């Protein structure tokens, strides 16, 4: 089903020059992150509680993300897409995509989210240095990502070694 859904995305991601395709791949990555990340058990009300995927506007995906997430579940948690412009509305989010063009400055955003079990995702290494967890990069026209393990630890998120294997770069955790 997912395969079929992703198949709709079509075309090689290497053709990232086409912005629409790039964001279709990123949307799929966002969904896939959910599969390789473990949230603390108290972040869900119950085993079937929804997993909230939030986008801090402005949304660069258009309708792509809606299509990707539609009717999907991760470990019985149905995926729910939520768009918000205000940082205060990020309560209950499990994944938060921070748009590069967000009105709030990055340090503020990340400072507000610190120590909360939210997988923060944005674009570029800059984001990780500021305390974000996953940042998309373009490597030879292909969408790849970097991971900041220290930030993940701070957010009490366990990131699967498989995901780390796939990451182009991993910033190690400080105390481990």
């Amino acid at each position: 089903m997912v395969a079929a859904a992703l198949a709709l995305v079509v075309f090689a991601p290497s053709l990232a020059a086409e912005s629409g395709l790039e964001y279709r791949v990123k949307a799929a990555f966002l969904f896939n992150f959910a599969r390789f990340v473990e949230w603390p058990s108290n972040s869900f009300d119950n085993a079937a509680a929804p997993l909230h995927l939030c986008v801090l506007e402005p949304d660069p995906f258009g309708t792509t993300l809606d299509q990707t997430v539609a009717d999907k579940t991760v470990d019985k948690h149905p995926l729910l897409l939520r768009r918000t412009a205000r940082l205060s509305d990020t309560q209950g989010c499990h994944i938060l995509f921070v748009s590069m063009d967000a009105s709030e400055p990055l340090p503020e955003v990340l400072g507000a989210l610190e120590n909360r079990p939210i997988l923060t995702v944005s674009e570029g290494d800059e984001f990780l240095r500021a305390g974000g967890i996953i940042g998309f990069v373009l490597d030879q026209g292909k969408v790849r990502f970097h991971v900041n393990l220290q930030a993940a630890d701070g957010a009490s998120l366990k990131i699967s070694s498989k995901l780390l294997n796939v990451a182009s770069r991993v910033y190690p955790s400080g105390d481990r």
Partner: protein
Amino acid sequence: MRSFTDLSLRHKLTLAILGTSAAAILLATASFVTYEWFTVRKAMVNDLATLAQIVGANTTAAVSFDDAVTARETLNALRAKPHIEVACIYSNVYGKNGSAFAQYARPGVTSKCPTQAPAPGHGFSTNALSLTRPIEVAQDTIGRIYIRQDLQGLWARLLLHLQVAAAVFLVGLLLALGLANLFQAIITRPLLALAGTARRVSETKDYSLRAPTAGQDEVGQLIDGFNGMLGQVEIRDRDLRKIHDKLQQQVVETGTANNDLEKALSRLKETQEQLVETEKMASLGGLVGGVAHEINTPVGVSVTAASTLKDSTTQVVENYNAGKLTDSGLRRYMETATQSSSIILNNLNRAAELIQSFKQVAVDQSNAERRRFQVDEYIHEILLSLRPTLKKTGHKIEVECDPAIAIDSFPGAFSQILTNLIMNSLIHAYDEGESGTLSIQVEQAKGHIQLCYADDGKGIPAHSHKQIFEPFFTTRRGAGGSGLGLHIVYNLTTQKMHGTINVESEAGAGTRFIITLPIDEKRHA
């Protein structure tokens, strides 16, 4: 090449045991190898499936994030498994509809992965085991993993198993051969002894021999049975010999008895011949008597006439000397002389005629010469010789025969046959003082004549028809019957004249003899 049937029992047993053992060992090792083969294959499939599962699970992230490099690195870990030839990851996501995403090939392997993902499952080819599994994340299938493994390990194991099986087979056969030699000796020794005894018995015919006994198994029972049989044969042989001896003695005794019997028989035949001769002489005597009687009359008349002539002549001579011869006296004398000499001449002629006839019959009767004779004339001559006998009885005799009929045969035998038949009728057919009619009919046919002799007397009862021609058969013994008359008729008809004789008669209806004689006896001799 000798067939199995002709092999010695020893070899048969050895072959049977070896064959059975070989079959059993072959079956056992074959099942062992087959079982191992399938077990090993199944284990290989399971192992490969587990490996595919592990490798597949390790590539889920790489597939999910479209990272072929990481996927390839993961696959490269398979270097540690030298039997893996190739391994491939096929992706279903990011627009790759089951096309090859990452692949690994053992150095030196040229055949690569299929370009499109095969269906999940596994398959053996001659040299390889291929296996395809889905790659799943949560419940979603995002790709497939294909692994191919060479079968060197399988073949090596099979080879090892076959070697072990061959070794087991050889050792088993050797063991079976040893045991077979041991067992066959136990079984064949008494059998060979039995066969030897049987051969000696048939060679020497010595039924007192016995085979050595051996145990109570089937062979032992066979030997006991054989010995029992020998015992019975021995007893029977002894009995047979006794019976044989007795029989030989009986044969000797029978031979002696036979000799005695033959002697008695030849004496009997001599006696019979003597009797026949006597009978012939008697009939000749009768003939002579008949002749004497027949001639008596004319000679007696001649004597009377002669003495009358002599008396008349004496009277005439005395009268002449006394001168008293008268003219009338002379005339009377001349009448008497003429009459007397006429009577004498007639009667002597008659006597001469008779003698001539008798002479012929008598010569024929005592002679065995063959000549040609007129049947009718000869019958009359025979009847003439019988006239004195017949005259006393008053029987009438009718002869019916063409005077031209003549045969070339033995007239003596012919006259004796007719005489005996007539005498037989005279003696047997009529009571004292009774007179009947005897008839003789002769007819000529082609090459033979048929003579029917019949009387109208008492006849012969049917039960006696077969016996009348046998010697010494008579109903009138002690009353003149010798029992040889018809026997002589039969012998002369059939043996001397080469004819046939049959009798037709019924009690009270007369008797009829039908005699057939060849016209020319020589042709039938």
